[in-house]
């Protein structure tokens, strides 16, 4: 097998070449309209919006920053502009069941009109009623009724008193009632005088008193009935006077809202209620509770509670909405979605009425579109459940969480539910989408349309040109300085580097947008009118500088020798591995020493990281593969009799991923064959049981990490990195690395197999089996195999001659049996 050659500079970085696309700055480019690189998502959104069936709501998912929200919202707004605007939603008092406010669905804009009309009516009602009930005529009639009642009572008592007087008795008023007493010469007889009367007279008087007492009781028992009759007459009077005063006012409203049956019914109810409560409305008949409230300063003088009942609570007013509403709820709490009933404090108690019903996002969006961030929705208590319940029942029912979960049973309002129409669009990442799909059976029924937003785009000349127009669009929308041709190219190259792929461009537009803004800032600092590649690079470097303090510290500790790492010489069983640290949006590579030790054993490859539970499952898998590789490739007919230990030196955090498995294998082979490995190299790549080196992530950061260490110690042309051949397409290396490679100061090898890698690392041939199945003398593989056979033989010697089994002993004679019956 031919040893691989170092990669050439052009394999390390893909330059953006616009070819025939001619422009000087982004101002020369036509801004790109619509979404770039999202045909699948666009088709899904179009389908989801177009299909008028239950459950065809949309879940738009994809990597954060792909512009899902903006794209979906803009798309919905374009679509909604041509849709019909839904009507207004109002809550009004239910005069029969106050705790169940009635819903009025009115044509667009008429909710506010009704509210204003009712406010005007209330003003006019109170004035009209006040003057009617204050009028001389009404007061006179009312007084007459009261007088009649009082007279009737007084007359009955007076007649009884007169009748008693004729019998020598007086009817007296006592503090709590009445009593009869004998009189003489207009004076009440004292007990002494009474006792002096002849017995006959006394008996007669007592008889008379008893008789009058019964008559008095009879009279008094009639009082409540008379009072009821008087009240009824007064009520009729009030009714007639009030009707005369208010009917023209309400008739005016009836005419204004002709054709709206619900409003007509409501106005009928208002009229009945006003007539029923005319006295209270003008403050003539305050209830004891109201009077107490006002006396204690708890009532609102200008807004009597009784008048609130005629207000109209316009829950949703679409008078200035064009087309269907598109609502994004950025705080999708349960109550912000389904609405709530607020309370106000009165005299230390919390009270409510239909005026305190507040709309939720669903109310505002019904008949249109509602966008909600899925992660926020799931993070807020009962918000997702509330949304689902509304979607399933197709009704928006306002109830508190406590009521919805039957946790509280306090008296509250039960507003008439609102029909839910339109589409719900959830926005999130793919993890949320797949988790919901897997664990919530209802989810798939409610969100049948998945709009999958891609995070990357093929880096083709066509897409590259479109990408340049997209940049032009972002620049114009945010009023940034235009980018020159080279700056645009640098942005596209950085976009590919963000993806770690020289064949793709990133669609994480939020990060690109940030880069454009920051480059614009640096252009401003440099007093340039056009953003150049220098500004873009400054923005990239400054961004890294802001975040790379930790990387710098690690680098420093390597330089100071605290973290041990050789970049020269050769050592047995020791290799430089490469790992990547991800700190938020910033990733950097760090070289680590990996060592291997072997001895006679039972065929175990011991991963020390795993033993101390510092390795993740993928790392452990990689190490176990090494055992499989050794057993299958070398001396398969003899037992693997070594005990090997592998360790990431000076690693005190967790290690995961299998990208170090090839490095570990090189260290292991070196230790077994006792052949030193050049420490001028660092290695990355995973390996399979067949010895093939497989692609890994973070190739750029890893190479740059080792390059920085070598640069600090001085590049000597011997240093370099081994990467999997499959990772070459991912290389978008820093300019200084590419430069060093071009000057022959640093080398990057792309290897396909372990044999290629070990040859570069040891300078010895790996060796292939010949026709006799033997590896060539002094090849690495031969040295390894020989050592393994030696170990196996040694192991056999230690185990001694095999003991004889019982089966191999001579068979014992069978016991004789007695034959019977012959």
């Amino acid at each position, binding site marked *: 097998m031919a040893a691989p050659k170092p990669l050439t500079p052009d394999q390390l970085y893909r330059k953006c070449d616009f070819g025939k696309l001619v422009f000087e700055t982004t101002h020369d480019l036509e801004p790109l309209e619509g979404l770039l690189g999202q045909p699948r998502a666009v088709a899904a959104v179009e389908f989801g919006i177009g299909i008028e069936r239950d459950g065809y709501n949309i879940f738009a998912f994809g990597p954060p920053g792909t512009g899902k929200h903006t794209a979906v919202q803009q798309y919905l707004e374009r679509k909604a502009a041509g849709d019909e605007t839904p009507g207004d939603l109002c809550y009004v008092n239910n005069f029969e069941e106050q705790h169940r406010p009635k819903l009025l669905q009115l044509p667009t804009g008429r909710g506010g009109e009704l509210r204003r009309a009712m406010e005007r009516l209330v003003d006019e009602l109170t004035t009209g009623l006040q003057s009617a009930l204050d009028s001389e005529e009404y007061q006179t009639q009312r007084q007459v009724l009261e007088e009649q009642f*009082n*007279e009737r009572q*007084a*007359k009955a*008592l*007076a007649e009884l*008193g007169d009748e008693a007087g004729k019998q020598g008795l007086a*009817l*007296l*008023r*006592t*503090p*709590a*009632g*009445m*009593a*009869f*007493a*004998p009189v003489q010469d207009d*004076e*009440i*007889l*004292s*007990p002494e005088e*009474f*006792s002096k009367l002849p017995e006959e007279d*006394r008996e007669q*008087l*007592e008889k008379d*008193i*008893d008789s*009058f*007492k019964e008559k*008095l*009781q009879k009279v*008094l*028992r009639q009082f409540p009935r008379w009072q009821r009759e008087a009240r009824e007459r007064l009520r009729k009077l009030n009714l007639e006077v009030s009707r005369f005063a208010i009917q023209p006012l309400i008739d005016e409203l009836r005419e204004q809202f002709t054709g709206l049956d619900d409003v007509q019914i409501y106005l009928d109810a208002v009229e009945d209620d006003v007539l029923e409560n005319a006295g209270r409305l003008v403050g003539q008949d305050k209830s004891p509770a109201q009077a107490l409230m006002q006396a204690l300063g708890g009532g609102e003088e200008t807004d009597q509670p009784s008048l609130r009942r005629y207000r109209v609570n316009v829950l949703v007013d679409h008078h200035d909405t064009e087309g269907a509403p598109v609502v994004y709820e950025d705080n999708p709490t349960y109550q912000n979605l389904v609405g709530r009933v607020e309370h106000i404090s009165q005299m230390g108690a919390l009270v409510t009425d239909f005026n305190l019903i507040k709309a939720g996002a669903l109310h505002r969006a019904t008949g249109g579109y509602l966008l909600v961030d899925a992660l926020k929705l799931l993070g807020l208590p009962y918000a997702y459940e509330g949304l689902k319940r509304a979607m399933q029942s197709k009704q928006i029912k306002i109830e508190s969480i406590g009521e919805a979960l039957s946790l509280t049973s306090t008296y509250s309002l039960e507003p008439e539910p609102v029909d839910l129409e339109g589409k719900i669009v959830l926005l999130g990442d793919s993890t949320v989408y797949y988790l919901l799909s897997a664990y919530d059976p209802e989810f798939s029924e409610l969100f049948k349309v998945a709009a999958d937003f891609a995070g990357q785009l093929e880096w083709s000349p066509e897409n590259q040109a479109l990408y340049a127009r997209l940049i032009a669009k972002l620049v114009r929308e945010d009023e940034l300085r235009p980018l020159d041709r080279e700056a645009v190219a640098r942005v596209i190259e950085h976009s590919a580097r963000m993806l770690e792929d020289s064949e793709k461009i990133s669609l994480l537009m939020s990060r690109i947008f940030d880069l454009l803004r920051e480059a614009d800032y640096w252009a401003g600092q440099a007093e340039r009118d056009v953003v150049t590649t220098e500004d873009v690079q400054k923005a990239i470097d400054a961004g890294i500088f802001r975040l790379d303090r930790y990387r710098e510290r690690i680098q420093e500790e390597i330089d100071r020798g605290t973290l041990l790492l050789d970049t020269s010489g050769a050592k047995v069983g020791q290799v430089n591995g490469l790992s990547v640290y991800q700190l938020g949006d910033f990733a950097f590579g760090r070289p680590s020493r990996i060592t291997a030790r072997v001895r006679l054993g039972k065929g175990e490859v011991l991963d020390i990281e795993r033993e101390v539970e510092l390795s993740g499952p993928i790392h452990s898998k990689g190490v176990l593969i090494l055992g499989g590789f050794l057993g299958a490739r070398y001396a398969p007919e003899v037992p693997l009799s070594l005990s090997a230990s592998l360790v990431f030196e000076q690693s005190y955090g967790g290690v995961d991923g299998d990208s170090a498995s090839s490095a570990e294998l090189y260290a292991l082979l070196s230790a077994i064959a006792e052949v030193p490995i050049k420490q001028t190299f660092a290695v990355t790549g995973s390996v399979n049981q067949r010895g093939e080196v497989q692609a890994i992530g973070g190739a750029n950061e890893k190479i740059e990490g080792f390059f920085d260490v070598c640069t600090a110690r001085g590049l000597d042309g011997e240093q370099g990195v081994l990467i999997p051949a499959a990772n070459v397409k991912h290389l978008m290396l820093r300019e200084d690395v590419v430069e060093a490679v071009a000057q022959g100061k640093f080398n990057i090898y792309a290897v396909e197999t372990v044999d290629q890698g070990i040859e570069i690392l040891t300078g010895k041939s790996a060796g292939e089996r010949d026709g006799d199945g033997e590896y060539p003398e002094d090849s690495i593989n031969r040295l390894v195999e020989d050592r393994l056979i030696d170990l196996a033989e040694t192991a056999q010697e230690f185990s001694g001659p095999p003991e004889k089994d019982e089966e191999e002993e001579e068979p014992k004679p069978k016991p004789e049996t007695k034959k019977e019956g012959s």
Partner: protein
Amino acid sequence: MTATPATRTIRRVLVALDTSPSSMAAARAAARLASRFEAELVGLFVEDLDLLHLTNSPMARHVDLLTASSETVESLDVERQLRAQAGRARRALAQLADRSEVAWSFQVARGNVAAEVLAAATENDLVSLGRFGLSLRHRRRLGKIARALLAEGNRCTLLIERMEEVRPPVVAVFDGSEASRSALVLATEFAGPKLGAFLVLTLGENSDQLRREAAEILEEGDVTAELIDLGPALDSKVVNLVRRRRAGLVLPVGGPALGEEEIQGLLNQIDCPVLAVS
């Protein structure tokens, strides 16, 4: 008859209280007058001895007004109820006095109600009382105490039927008697120069003389008034004028033209506040 009016100063205003609506109206009017004349407001509650006798009597039969039930009432119960009533009356008077910012006192007496009020009236300049009190007689007839006060020639008696302001306009009847001169002086003192409407009704044969005398008193009090001649006898004109103008009526008692029967007849037809001056 001298043309110089007798001046009269109101320093103490007595109100007889029994917690009936009518007596509460009288208390309010009394407070207003006390405030106007910067007088002391004196409340009187009489524990009716007849009631106390009644409860000790073996033939007492009490019927509860709210439930129409008949129960035997012990004198202690009645005393307790009377004390409670007196307490309510005292609180009501205190409130009115505070609101009107006048000095006040409250007395509780025990005895015959009319006799006690008459006795107290002699120590006060004006007595204010409800026209009907707790009387169970016909509503339109003047109460026993009011009648007694008028009969005894109490100097000033204000009769109030219901809760209403004692304020102008005022209609005063002037018959030339000493009582009517006093009444007119008092009316001018009450009204003051800013009075909106003041009507003097002259009653008697010599109307010119009566008009002159009345005009002198009015001039003395710096009050302008409209003068109307009623002729020699009282007729329905007074009732109509008082009703139409919703005025308070000032009446002289004991004069030649206004006997007890005439006054009783007049009072039976009107329900406005009436100030009877002897």
